[in-house]
């Protein structure tokens, strides 16, 4: 069952500065729950219209094909509490036991990023600030190219034009199994994020 989280911090998820998340402490209780050996996937965005079907379908495919105990963390940005309609929709879906819903407060977002195997972008579920925070913290980013924009992630993410649920599920499986790919995505993401910090010349 999705967990409703009552937001108390006066910070909207989408207001999180990407260069400030590194110094924020994660919510340790959530981190303890999420740091499991099973896969943990993260989706974040303004989800007032609900969780995109392609994402939900991709996660259900992943559960069926790869890891039945995988987890999906859904963070609703831009609001102190997740939309009720979204909570209701997630509660009604077949994978509801494996999904948690929270408002994207900084400490919650930090915990989710630290625990996640990847941040998944979908056309209808992405947030530029969260994507930048993932790059800064070394969290792989995968999903729909249209949701990322090349300017945001460059070559630092595993992105697909016109990503289908099957393609998304396959990407999740690949990231989960391929440590080298995760390392490449992490380092490219960091370089990408770094370019935003300074316009200095790349090292020799």
């Amino acid at each position, binding site marked *: 069952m999705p967990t409703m989280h009552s937001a108390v911090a006066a910070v909207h998820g989408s207001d999180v500065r990407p*260069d400030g998340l*590194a*110094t924020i*402490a*994660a919510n*340790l209780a959530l*981190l*303890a729950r999420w*740091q*499991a*050996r099973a896969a*943990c996937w993260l989706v974040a965005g303004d989800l007032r219209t609900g969780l995109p079907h392609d994402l939900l379908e991709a996660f259900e495919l992943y559960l069926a094909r790869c890891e039945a105990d995988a987890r999906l963390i859904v963070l609703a940005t831009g609001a102190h509490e997740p939309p009720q309609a979204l909570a209701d929709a997630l509660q009604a879906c077949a994978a509801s036991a494996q999904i948690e819903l929270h408002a994207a407060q900084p400490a919650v977002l930090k915990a989710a*990023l*630290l*625990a*996640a*195997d990847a941040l998944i972008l979908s056309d209808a579920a992405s947030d530029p600030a969260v994507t930048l925070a993932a790059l800064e*913290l*070394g*969290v792989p980013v995968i999903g729909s190219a249209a949701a990322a924009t090349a300017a945001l992630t460059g070559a630092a993410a595993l992105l697909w034009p016109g990503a289908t649920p099957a393609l998304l599920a396959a990407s999740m499986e690949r990231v989960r199994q391929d*440590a080298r790919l*995760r*390392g490449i995505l*992490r*380092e490219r993401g*960091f370089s990408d994020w*770094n370019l935003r*910090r*300074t316009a*200095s*010349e*790349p*090292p*020799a």
Partner: protein
Amino acid sequence: MKRIAIVTQRCHESVVGGSEALAWQYARLLGGRFEVEILTTTATDCVSWANALPAGATQREGIAIQRFPTVFERGEYWYELHRRLMLEVQPHLAPPPCLWRAAQQEEYIRFQGPYCPALEDWLLAHRGDYAAVLFCTYLYAPSYFGIRLIGPRRAILIPTLHDEVPAWLPVYAARYAAFPHRIWLTEAERRTATRLWGLDGGAVLGMAVEQAQASAPASLGAPYLLYCGRIDAAKGCDELLDAFARLPGRDRAKLVFTGSDHLGLPKHPWIEYHGFVDEARKRALMAGAAGFVLPSRYESFSIVALEAMAQGTPVLVNGHCEVMREHIETSAGGYCYTDTAQMIERMTTLLALDAPARARMGAAGRAYVLARYGEDTVRARLVDCVEGVIAAADRAQASAA
């Protein structure tokens, strides 16, 4: 002269720490050949990392130092992460993959501190100004997060690695595998890196023993064993006290300590605590001791034990520490022990050595130190190493242009 930088977590006259002393020594040894700059933090305390010194540029003995502020002190958040690392994650025991994702491992390193985004900004902005950048000690955030801002051709890692739980976090191995230029202090340290990280490239250079001139021995009225440095359970000092308390004939000998007491030494007639002493007094105490004891399991070099050997004093070390065991086995300048009973037995032996036997063992230790870790020897090896890295990077850059 070419400009190089050395990144280290602390740098100040008041700081006591092995890797900090190493960074400063390397700055000094390289100073005649390069324009050396130390990039460090404003912290002096290696637990809190509180900002204690002014940020900005300063000079020490002609070497430029740039200090950058830490953005938080170590707090409950990190201690809770550390508790989980030790009790739940246990990367040294658990089969891979590590329970913590890479981002969480890096969170542990970041909040372990000292975390200095301004130092990273400096490296980003000025990396093109340095012919090479040396990063001293693998463990802390300035090296871990800073080295990735420098290309692998011009970065030189000085890990000062020992087998401790955080070293098993896979992100360390992954990060440092990308940086092939490394300086090891001993062969044992390099073997430790092979075992923990799967890496073995780099040069074994060591650290110069600066306090090698022979001193007149101190006399304390009874034979004594000496410990110098941070007095702490983490350094094995509790085991040392326990062993000495069980020593036969304990009341005819003394256990002498110098350094900072973080343990709270008990009051006993056979314990003498001298607090901080200057180098001359330390050498005299070393020269006069029946033996110098280093009970720490975790040492990547131990300059203080080598200083004692340079005074011709036999040393007794924890045989679980591969580096120290190598010093002893190679030099024949002392003994190792692997349990408390053996520690007591070896301490008894040291206190009972006759003068010729002590002199033979002491001479072997002193010869080992002077041959391997004399200042000129280490300087020559260090300059060769750094010049080699710079020349290779320059060639690669020229051919790419």
